[in-house]
């Protein structure tokens, strides 16, 4: 196992790097996009409410693979996208729907009086959101957002379907080249765990603390 890792360290490390890069880009992108859609859902405007709702429901109910393949084989005919780009875009859109739901739940759990108070103090709706509600909402949703990030890292293995150079893709390539169907996957599994396990334990720890702090 160790010799396999040593002799193909380059592939594993580059796969690890691409997985991290894709996850970080998708996290940033889906945080922005998800927050935008969450705001569109709560803003007092029927039209944007409906648009956001439709977007979220559609994206949440379709497999990530279908979204990613769509970008890879359909959208790429118009704009040239390589596998990494198509996979990361698919990942961003898919995750954004879940983040939108999480952020909206956070906004809704902020006491209604806060928004009313801010409005009656002369702040506009946007200002009240920006300075009063959103900061509190984000604090509340840190643990669920962390769990979304863990899912995102795991889901980034979708890049393997579109030659996105990530960990899973490297494992497939290596297993095809060496005809070893065990070693590469064990190593890649450990590398995924190095990314996700600490995060997962940290989120459990945070959840416990926040729950105690709140009580």
């Amino acid at each position, binding site marked *: 196992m160790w010799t396999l890792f040593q002799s193909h360290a380059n592939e594993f490390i580059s796969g690890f790097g691409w997985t991290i890069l894709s996850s970080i880009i998708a996290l940033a992108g889906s945080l922005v996009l998800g927050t935008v859609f969450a705001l569109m859902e709560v803003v007092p405007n029927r039209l944007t409410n409906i648009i956001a709702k439709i977007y979220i*429901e*559609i994206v*949440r*109910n*379709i*497999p*990530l*693979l*279908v979204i990613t*393949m*769509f970008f890879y*084989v*359909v959208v790429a005919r118009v704009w040239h996208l390589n596998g990494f780009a198509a996979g990361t875009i698919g990942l961003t859109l898919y995750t954004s729907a879940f983040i939108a739901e999480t952020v909206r739940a956070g906004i809704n759990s902020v006491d209604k009086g806060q928004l009313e108070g801010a409005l009656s103090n002369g702040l506009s709706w946007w200002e009240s959101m920006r300075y009063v509600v959103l900061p509190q909402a984000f604090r509340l949703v840190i643990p669920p957002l962390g769990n979304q990030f*863990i899912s995102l890292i*795991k*889901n*980034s*293995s*979708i890049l*393997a*379907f579109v030659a996105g150079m990530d960990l*899973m893709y490297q*494992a497939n390539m290596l*297993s095809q080249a060496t005809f070893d*169907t*065990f070693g590469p*996957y064990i190593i*890649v*599994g450990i590398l*995924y*765990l190095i990314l*996700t*396990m600490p995060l*997962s*334990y940290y989120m459990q720890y945070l959840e416990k603390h926040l729950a105690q702090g709140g009580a």
Partner: protein
Amino acid sequence: MQELIQAYSWINLRFLLMGLWVTIEVSVISIGLSFVIGSLLGIIRYMKLGWFSKIVGFIVDVIRNLPLLLIIFFTYFGLPKIGIHMGVMMSTTVAMTIFESAMIAEIVRSGILAVPKGQLEGALSNGLTMPETLWHILLPQAYKKMIPPLVSQFVSLIKDTSLATIIMLPEVTFRAQTIYAQKPQAIIPMFIMLALLYFVLNFTVSQLGSYFDRRMEA
């Protein structure tokens, strides 16, 4: 327009629907199995039965934190190495069950933890044993609260069966790919159809879920 009608010919639709049936079969069996196994694992972890619960907890955490795709590869290409041979369908069902059981175990454990502590203490001081308390007091309340996260986990499971295209499970995504590989002009109609089929299936499941949720609350 002509191409659209050709893409949605009865021959193609029937081919896709047969795949949708495979998706549903694998999903239903995996949902049933992982609900039972996941509940057991979650209860074992909650009960804090010394080392036993700790070991179960580690395994659950490891599986939860691995990509499902990796687990699918493992069951299909790794397990035969120790003499366990399964067909594609069986392999997928086993892989899905392993992964989803771990996810559900966590939902069940935190569901039980969310029941107010006083209930547990009250029941125990009234002379009920721990298993009785669990069965009559904690679980009924916990499962009521767990319906929304469980349902969204089931929806994830249905969507994730598409990952088994990589081991050539003839489910609906795989069949759509087969069609547009043979008729490139059918690519866009096939993606629209896939989106529609998954949406209808999953939306139905989530609506059923929220119906039960409301009925339980009432």
